[in-house]
């Protein structure tokens, strides 16, 4: 953590830190503390008076079926996106790890969706699955499958999951490939000599050795699904139909929009903050373990 050779003095290091500290205090600590403070306040409908209400906003949240639903939506959404994007990415990474010709080209062709904005990814998938003009939606209807993400909550959830998965595969692929390439070839060759078939080699050697990468990706993916998918949800469904795709982060936004329920929105922010701190703590424990490993 500390160099053995260093400079001393107080003014210069503080001046160096000043830009970052100033921006952090003004645009991070001040608004974050406002969020905590607001979560204890209740504003009347006209915004004329505010009252300190202790934990009333939190109590109101936990008795609000809409908030419970957002929790369930987030759980469904994140587990599907994590499982799908991780397993598909792992499959591609295992294939790209083979010494085949053109592996580098395939790698390039698989990683660029990382650069597509979530909101743009949402528009692309909306266009394919729009019930009246989407090419794939029409394909579904000619096969006799009823499909309408604008009215059917399950269809909407499925579409959001597909778009979020599509966007996340490239990221997971990249990390899985790096993880695979760091497994010593000698270990795998030894298994080959022992007569282990490819499938068995994968499940008994490669997959366990990849577990640090997998666990790291799991945490990162949960954070991704929680926060970075806002653009996908907003462009595809806007949280609808009737709240079927409203996640926790989306609800912070939609409840606070127009200042109608700032206290409730702030209380949701605080709960999310606690959840993120929990996940970060888990991640750090894991990184410490990896160092000892």
């Amino acid at each position, binding site marked *: 953590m500390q160099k053995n050779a260093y400079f001393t003095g107080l003014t210069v290091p503080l001046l160096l830190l000043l830009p970052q500290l100033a921006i952090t205090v003004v645009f991070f600590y001040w608004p974050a503390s406002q969020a905590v403070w607001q979560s204890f306040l209740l504003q009347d409908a006209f915004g004329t008076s505010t009252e300190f209400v202790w934990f009333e906003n939190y109590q109101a949240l936990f008795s609000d079926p809409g908030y419970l639903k957002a929790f369930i939506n987030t759980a469904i959404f994140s587990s599907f996106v994590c499982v799908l994007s991780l397993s598909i990415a792992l499959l591609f990474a295992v294939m790209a790890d083979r010494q085949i010709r053109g592996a580098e080209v395939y790698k390039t062709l698989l990683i660029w969706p990382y650069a597509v904005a979530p909101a743009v990814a949402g528009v692309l998938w909306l266009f394919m699955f729009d019930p009246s003009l989407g*090419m794939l939606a029409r394909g579904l209807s000619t096969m006799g499958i009823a499909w309408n993400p604008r009215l059917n909550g399950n269809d909407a959830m499925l579409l959001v999951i597909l778009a979020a998965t599509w966007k996340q595969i490239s990221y997971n692929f990249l990390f899985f490939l790096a993880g695979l390439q760091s497994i010593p070839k000698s270990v795998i060759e030894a298994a080959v000599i022992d007569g282990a078939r490819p499938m068995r080699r994968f499940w008994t050697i490669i997959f366990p050795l990849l577990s640090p990468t997998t666990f790291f990706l799991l945490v990162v993916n949960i954070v991704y699904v929680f926060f970075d998918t806002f653009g996908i949800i907003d462009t595809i469904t806007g949280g609808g139909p009737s709240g079927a795709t409203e996640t926790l982060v989306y609800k912070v936004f939609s409840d606070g929009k127009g200042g109608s329920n700032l206290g409730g929105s702030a209380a949701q922010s605080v709960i999310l903050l606690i959840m993120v701190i929990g996940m970060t703590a888990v991640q750090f424990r894991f990184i410490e373990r990896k160092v000892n490993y």
Partner: protein
Amino acid sequence: MVEDRRFGDFIAYVILSIGVLIVAFPVWLTFVASTWDAATIINGKLPLYPGPYFFENYNRILFIGTSSTTREPVLGMMLNSFVMAMAIALGKIFISVLSAYAVVYYRFPFRMAAFWIIFVTLMLPVEVRIFPTFKVVSDLRMLDTYQGLAVPLIASATGTLLFRQFFMTIPDELLEASRIDGAGPFRFFKDTVVPLSITTIAALFVIQFIYGWNQYLWPLLVTTKDSMQTIVIAIKKMIVTSDALTEWQLAMATAMLAMLPPVLVVILMQRLFVKGLVETEK
């Protein structure tokens, strides 16, 4: 290896090709849609190959704008996105190189406190504190400005952690040697630390440029004037009206233009991109 690999390699080609198809299909369809006219798309008769309206559609959105929804030409929005992405990337590099240098190379009373103050910001993405942050920006009269778009998104710890990690790997002997040559902290920073950090800086730049260009919720709140909006939020505005009025071919051409710069950055600077991605997540 010892066993016959031909069958396995064949399977690998098939699966990877399917993967590339899945990844590319939505974008191909978007490109195709951007080269046809509205009637073809609305009737659901969009073919899988490009049509004859490429120049007409792109010319119209780039220089004229859609008639009904966003009104502004997309070229100006791309400029806004570019300024915002550059400001975020360069701003973050600037403040985090300086603060990491202070934290690593100086010993002073509040060093650890300063580090933790910065470090905690890792935990709260802007989406969560969106309304209080919006209020601060509006109180500072920064709505509809480039500063308002960029500066609040600079407040994060990723860059500082990255540079701190890299500076820790610079051997102490370099500092001792440059001291013997009579160099002070500024000379050492300028002549030794920054030149050594160039690849790290470039890698962080690539990641942050993509992050900045792709911002959605923040520009949506902070810009009210049409002339200040970014290209990513413009697409949403183009399709928000009812189906019959949506000029899909123009929205799709805008989507193509919104994807182009960050995707080009990833493909052309792949090595830096991978380095930046892997190292900022450590």
